[in-house]
């Protein structure tokens, strides 16, 4: 780039008015740290942003034909997929991109967790990312109802019903979400407003902030290093790589949209339009939410109606709230990472959570069910089959961690595996197995945390 030449041209014209030279200098010198771990984790925020942009573009196109309403919502989606030129492609890309965005976001978030990129001074980047994650789930939940088909209708009935377990505000929140006592066309109207106005506007602001934080601070260097040993120029080297990956993502989207237009058709990952919703029809059994909500759907099923004097779903929601709170507050809880040291407890916490979610998800898919039934014998068979699958997955993951990554502190993930073994293979109930595993893990965890909590010297990593 010839700065001197540019200053006389368009850049000079802009510079005299907006003083953009510092910005260009910033970009020119911006570097991406290269270090102990693979660079692949740095791209996931970018791919998430790419899928989000695809959502915005395809969403706008869908909006040109979609008409929310009792007599039009389902019909207009059918019209889009059958009559509008390339409508089938736009809807299919929108659906695929939504799922891939959430997948990419989850991997992005978990990789940030594992690499401890949330440690100071990047706490707010983590928090803004966490809120963006919550908003994305909101996108998924609200968008699901818009085709106004049977499956979405009943899944929304079940999904919104679970908020009534919240103490005090539960019933009020249920009515706010549904726009009345029941899921009706009013629910569709407010989900539509949420999906196309409220959530996008909130996301734009937060994504801007999140990107600003990342740009101001740069990407986190590996734990233990004050500065990355090497760096790669952000512009153009990293930016071209980003662009290359985006093109590959676009290709993948197109191929998937043409060859698998309605998704892999497994519960929680299918979007065939199906029958129009009929609020008067009885709900059929086996209604399941999207795959990223399956774990909470299954967890609610594992709780009995009453537990320790509370309602089962209330205890479940409490447990989920605690997990979410710990997750959100990780930058403040992880004292070792604050000191720019390895924090194996939180690495293991991340792995344990992945085990916890995966086991619930496998169970929610009824893998190993006897004749598709939900009788006790069939539920037992599901727990047994999923237990063995989960155990196999956990053994592979743990072997990789121990042999290749050198992880040695495995208390929480071991507790998650013990939970799987006690419930799935030994045959204890999900909750008693969980209580035993949590109880056994509590002691070494407390000991570790106690030894890990030392005064923070020097105010953190950087």
């Amino acid at each position: 780039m010839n700065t001197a030449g540019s200053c006389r041209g368009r850049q000079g014209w802009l510079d005299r008015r907006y003083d953009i030279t510092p910005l260009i200098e910033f970009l020119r010198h911006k570097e991406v740290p290269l270090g102990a771990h693979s660079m692949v984790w740095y791209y996931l925020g970018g791919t998430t942003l790419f899928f989000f942009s695809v959502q915005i573009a395809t969403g706008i196109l869908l909006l040109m034909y979609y008409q929310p309403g009792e007599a039009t919502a389902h019909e207009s989606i059918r019209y889009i997929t059958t009559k509008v030129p390339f409508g089938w492609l736009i809807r299919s890309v929108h659906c695929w991109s939504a799922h891939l965005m959430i997948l990419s976001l989850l991997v992005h978030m978990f990789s940030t967790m594992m690499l401890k990129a949330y440690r100071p001074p990047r706490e707010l980047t983590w928090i803004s990312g966490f809120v963006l994650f919550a908003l994305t789930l909101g996108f998924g939940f609200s968008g699901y109802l818009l085709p106004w088909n049977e499956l979405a209708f009943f899944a929304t009935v079940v999904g919104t019903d679970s908020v009534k377990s919240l103490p005090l505000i539960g019933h009020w929140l249920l009515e706010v979400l549904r726009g009345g006592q029941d899921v009706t066309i009013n629910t569709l109207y407010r989900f539509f407003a949420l999906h196309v106005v409220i959530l996008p506007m909130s996301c734009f602001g937060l994504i801007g902030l999140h990107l600003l934080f990342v740009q101001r601070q740069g990407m986190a260097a590996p734990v233990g290093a004050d500065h990355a040993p090497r760096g790669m120029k952000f512009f153009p080297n990293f930016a071209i790589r980003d662009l290359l990956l985006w093109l590959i993502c676009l290709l993948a989207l197109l191929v998937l949209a043409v060859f698998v237009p309605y998704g892999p058709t497994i519960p929680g990952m299918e979007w065939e339009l199906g029958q129009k919703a009929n609020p008067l029809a009885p709900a059929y059994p086996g209604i399941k939410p999207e795959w990223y909500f399956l774990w909470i759907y299954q967890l609610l099923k594992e709780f009995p109606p009453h537990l320790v004097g509370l309602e089962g779903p209330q205890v479940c929601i409490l447990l989920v709230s605690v997990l979410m709170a710990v997750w959100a507050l990780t930058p403040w809880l992880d004292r070792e990472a604050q000191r720019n040291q390895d924090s194996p407890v939180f690495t293991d916490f991340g792995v344990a959570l992945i085990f916890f979610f995966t086991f619930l998800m496998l169970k929610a898919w009824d893998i190993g069910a006897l004749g598709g039934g939900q009788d006790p014998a069939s539920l037992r068979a599901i727990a047994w089959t999923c237990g063995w699958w989960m155990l196999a997955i956990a053994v592979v993951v743990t072997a990789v961690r121990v042999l290749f990554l050198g992880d040695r502190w495995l208390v929480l993930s071991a507790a998650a595996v013990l939970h799987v073994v006690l419930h799935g293979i030994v045959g204890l109930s999900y909750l008693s197995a969980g209580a035993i595993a949590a109880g056994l893990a509590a002691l070494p965890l407390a000991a570790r945390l106690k030894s890990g909590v030392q005064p923070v010297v020097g105010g953190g990593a950087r």
Partner: protein
Amino acid sequence: MSMLYAALALVLTLVPRAWGTDIGIDTARGESFVLPPDLLEILNAPGDDGAPIIGAEERGYFNALPDHAKRQTAEAVSRELITTPQHLGEILSLGLASEKLERLMQDNCVLCHSNPDVHEGATLFSTDPTGVGSPAHMNLAEVVEDLHSRHGLSCAGCHGGDPAGFMDHDFPEEWPEDADIRKKDRSWIPQFCGRCHSNAAFMRRFNPALPTDQLAKYGASQHGRFLLDKKDSRAAQCVSCHGVHGIQGPNSPRSKVYPKNIPETCGACHASAEIMAGLTLADGSPMPTDQLDKYRDSVHGRALLERGDIGAAVCNDCHGNHAAMPPGVTSVGQICRTCHAGNGTLFDGSKHKEVFDRNGWPECGMCHGNHAISKTDDTMVGIGENSLCTGCHAQYAKHNPNCNETAAYFHDSIVELNHALETFEVRAERLAEKGLDVDLIADELNRLADLVKQARSYVHSFDSSDFRQVEDPGREVVRKMERLAEDAEDEYRARRTGLLVSVFLIGSVALFLYLKLRRMERPS
């Protein structure tokens, strides 16, 4: 925040629990009526183990009753119609709606006849009649739900006496007082029920829409002839089908004459070799008892008993009810036409009609049978092994080659159209899975399904030119679907080509970027 939730939820859950657990008897409960001591004594009377004889569930039920129901119970106790906790416990265990309990508490007859301290055996109502040695019709749970009782016809309506007065039994004159005579010769029963049910002016007061010709019809029925003329008390009368103390309207699923229960009600006698012994059909052969078994396996029986389709034909739809008679050869076809009108009309216009009439053959029954009518399938027509045609035709029309030709043509056409229907269903499904628009194909599939159904019906015209009226449109629909499916397959090919072009273009840009990156980063 989560701790706050926990604390609030704990308070919200535990506080109401502390209120709702008491299942003792509330004496006042903040209401105006205070339970009198004699009722309280019965309610709280302890058993051998010290716990109240009346169980927690029954006491909970009593507690929840409104004041006036409690007051009626107290009065029944004060009049000494209820004297023991066992008796009251049995009544409360019925879990009746409060208005039904109140009616029972004012019914001296049932209260006295359900008190094991006063009655036993044949005259005791109980929730477990066989357990206490009473006949099955002395069922307390049934009598309190009886239709007559709901309309104000109490015991005295049939048995005589004054339920509010003294304990004298003043039987109506139609009621044979001698139990032996009453049971051996049941011919008095139709007249007895007819006192009210044949009286239009009287019945109008309760159910103006109810017919009042049952007695007249009964007299003309086979059952009526046997009972009234031959005094054969095996013959069914009112009570045999409607019951005694637990009578329900015919629309109630608990009624013995509700469609789903009719096969068992009729079968109670007609499937019993003992009851049917010695009875013969018009041709002198013994009365069969396999009708119920055959019906259960028939297309009608399966529709009614397995699918719960109460529109399916059941015994009385063909035989009648109060005027029950076996349908004669001449009328059986007409009875089938009440539901299968289209097939009947086609048959009427066919050349078979005249031959059947001439030979006195039952129209539908000749091919389809009666109690064991099986579900039709396409092999029944044609010249194959299962064909219903060949049996008679080999005997009566063996010199007419057209018959077999026509039958084979019907069979082949129906099978071809049906095969097209099944094939296109699968093809449309596959196209839909690929994300293609199959709405038009689905419309044509619906049309073809209708036409195949009609083709099966048009067989009953026994005429190829009539049959072509549905076969030709069917074949046209198949041709149209073929065109639509090919269009959709072309569209899919176009999509794949478009994808290939896009992959090439995007891939080229990606390749260009990759090469540029390599050139940029080549160590110089």
